[in-house]
């Protein structure tokens, strides 16, 4: 057995009420490392092409990496994955917290769930004892409420992932919640669990995670922590977390505002990290082994609401604050609470609500569709009402629950122009008409318009905000580096914000596993994974190709009306030029498909054989 891993893959077949485990294959470890790599390899090799994501044969996976749960900064990350009910392509969502450490201490690297339970259930994993319990009494309850009830009955030291009513109702932007406020938010994976009648996964482990060289690990880990603690930005980060991004994003005109019409929200100082700290934050809340604890736990109280919530994170502030034009951090925090309790991704949720408000302004939807609610930007009641309607599939919420792309295609032929998504996944919190590398990042991200695989706004500030040149190579570099953290099972923030070099992670990997991989070897695996996720899209989405990498027409048709990026637009020909360069550098065809030569170079020739 290779050290650093839980050692086993746990399989739960709900239709057959069968629970099995098998050793994690050594070649899987050597070729795909963990978490993200394990997920795409499992989906590509085990899921029948064309499987309906919400049908019993579909798979839901939670996977950890070799660095998850280990003594080094911020090792509390796991990936969840499946074929996305929202996009129909590769679906993956990252989450921080304490679950991955617990899962590895129980002896598992990954849980693969398939089939469908005849009645609501939750899965309990306690070392070698794995069982299904009746969740009838929990069905219909909110995510936070469910987690509290399960901790009360099982024990506070269980680590729990739940879905809310949105997941149960197969809402395609449903998330998975963990640790009272952390989410695997993106790509609608909560709906897969809902379709399988799984309300929660509860894990407690007692075993030590084996380490190849304990003294070596301690030495590297201490160095990594020390780099965090001595970074000049450490205190800022600990005080304000991702909230510190809000002011900066507005100053450079990249803050999504009113459904991405603008990049500047006039009330942004009301949403800043400093305001948030003063108005709502109770404590700092850290994921497992976290050096920085960017999580902020808050208490929001105003008028007839009073709620506890983790957040808001920058993304929520951007997508519900700026994008729905809510200028009071308390309202943003309460909307965040509603999304968490109902089990909705705040990024997609904020985007769809903003889209609906714009549709209402244009008369495309009316009070008849909204159950009498007059939708307005800047109106908290509109936002609160739509969150509930989407989660419960009431009125227009039933259509919005299908995601922005589907909603736009259904209600108006022109609405797709301002449905802010790529590949069906709503764009996250950076307005990018004057941030072309960021735009290209959104266009080519392997789950749709999300910033996790590549975030390149600062690169745009340096290399030119209106030119397509010198963008593709940087985006590709980032797409191999950032997802590497999601493969190793750690947070990327100590790297990107505190300056811990990738070489330290590579050294830690060697100390933990005893596998003698260099930093370059790890990047090579990351590229292999990236190309395999691309081939999954090619396999699963009929006609998949270049047009799926295009952003909505708002990017080249509508000028930014105000703020520091006023007048900004990014022309269609420049978009095509960036894509051409990107495909060429990647070794893909002009239609965006990996070539035979590239697949062979990455050891993916078996993909060609399997598709013949």
């Amino acid at each position: 057995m290779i050290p650093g891993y839980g050692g086993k893959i746990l399989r739960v077949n709900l239709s057959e009420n069968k629970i099995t485990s098998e050793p994690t294959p050594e070649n899987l470890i050597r070729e795909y490392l963990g978490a993200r790599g394990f997920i795409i390899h499992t989906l590509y090799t085990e899921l029948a092409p064309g499987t309906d994501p919400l049908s019993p044969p579909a798979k839901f996976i939670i996977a950890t990496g070799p660095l998850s749960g280990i003594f080094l900064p911020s090792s509390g990350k796991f990936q969840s994955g499946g074929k996305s009910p929202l996009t129909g392509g590769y679906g993956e969502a990252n989450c921080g917290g304490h679950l991955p450490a617990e899962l590895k201490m129980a002896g598992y690297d990954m849980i693969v769930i398939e089939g469908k339970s005849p009645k609501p259930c939750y899965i309990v994993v306690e070392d070698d004892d794995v069982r299904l319990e009746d969740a009838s009494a929990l069905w219909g309850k909110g995510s936070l409420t469910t987690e509290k009830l399960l901790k009360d009955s099982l024990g506070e030291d269980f680590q729990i992932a739940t879905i809310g009513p949105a997941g149960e109702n197969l809402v395609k932007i449903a998330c998975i919640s963990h640790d009272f406020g952390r989410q695997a938010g993106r790509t609608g994976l909560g709906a897969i669990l809902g379709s399988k009648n799984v309300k929660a996964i509860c894990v407690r482990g007692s075993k030590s995670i084996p380490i190849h060289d304990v003294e070596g690990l301690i030495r590297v880990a201490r160095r990594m922590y020390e780099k965090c603690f001595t970074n000049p930005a450490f205190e800022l980060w600990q005080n304000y977390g991702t909230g510190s991004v809000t002011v900066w994003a507005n100053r450079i005109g990249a803050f999504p505002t009113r459904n991405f019409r603008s990049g500047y929200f006039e009330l942004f100082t009301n949403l800043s990290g400093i305001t948030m700290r003063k108005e709502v934050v109770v404590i700092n809340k850290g994921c497992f082994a976290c050096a920085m604890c960017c999580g902020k736990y808050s208490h929001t109280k105003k008028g007839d609401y009073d709620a506890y919530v983790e957040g808001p994170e920058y993304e929520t502030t951007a997508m519900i604050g700026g994008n729905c034009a809510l200028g009071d951090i308390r309202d943003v925090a309460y909307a965040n609470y509603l999304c968490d309790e109902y089990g909705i991704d705040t990024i997609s949720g904020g985007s769809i609500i903003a889209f609906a408000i714009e549709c209402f302004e244009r008369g495309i939807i009316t009070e008849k569709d909204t159950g009498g609610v007059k939708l307005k930007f800047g109106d908290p009641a509109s936002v609160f009402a739509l969150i509930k309607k989407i989660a419960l599939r009431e009125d227009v919420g039933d259509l919005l629950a299908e995601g922005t792309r589907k909603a736009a295609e259904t209600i108006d032929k022109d609405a797709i122009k301002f449905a802010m998504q790529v590949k069906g996944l709503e764009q996250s919190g950076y307005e990018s008409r004057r941030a072309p590398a960021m735009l290209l990042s959104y266009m080519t991200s392997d789950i749709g318009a999300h910033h996790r695989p590549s975030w390149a706004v600062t690169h745009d500030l340096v290399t030119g905000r209106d030119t397509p040149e010198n963008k593709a190579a940087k985006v590709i570099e980032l797409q191999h580096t950032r997802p590497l953290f999601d493969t190793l099972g750690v947070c990327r923030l100590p790297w990107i914000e505190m300056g811990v070099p990738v070489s330290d992670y590579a050294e830690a990997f060697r100390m933990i596993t005893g596998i003698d991989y260099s930093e370059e070897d790890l990047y090579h695996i990351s590229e292999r994974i990236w190309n395999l996720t691309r081939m999954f899209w090619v396999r699963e989405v009929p006609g998949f190709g270049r047009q799926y990498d295009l952003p909505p027409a708002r990017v080249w048709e509508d000028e930014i009306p105000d703020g520091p990026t006023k007048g900004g637009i990014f022309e269609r020909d420049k978009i095509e030029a960036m894509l051409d360069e990107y495909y060429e550098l990647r070794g893909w065809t002009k239609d965006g498909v990996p070539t035979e030569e590239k697949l062979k170079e990455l050891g993916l020739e078996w993909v060609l054989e399997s598709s013949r």
Partner: protein
Amino acid sequence: MKIGREESRCSGCRTCQLVCALHHFKENNPKKAAIGIRGEFPEPGRYRISLCTQCEKCIDACPEGAISKVDGIIRINSEKCTYCLACVDACPFDAIFTHSDFKVPFICDVCGECVEICPTKALYWKS
């Protein structure tokens, strides 16, 4: 010197538990730590830290005389311990710990590794 706790600073990251188990057992396992972290969520949203305060209640509770203070720090003598766990029950701070891999319970030896690593300074030296 004692280790002080400032619970309002604790982020629940458990790095203290990791370093404790690594230092004492050379194992990556926060369940083998002599410090406890317990969340109280969703309300009021805080972490509770369980750590020996050197109060000596366990010394009085031990029927075997296996617990004593050595250089001012509470120690459990594994030769004398009969694993009755009376000390665990007697501790007012839930600060004596057990694990299925060990018969003898374990308690903080004030080595200070947790103080050195705590990212939020929730643990500190107190004279």
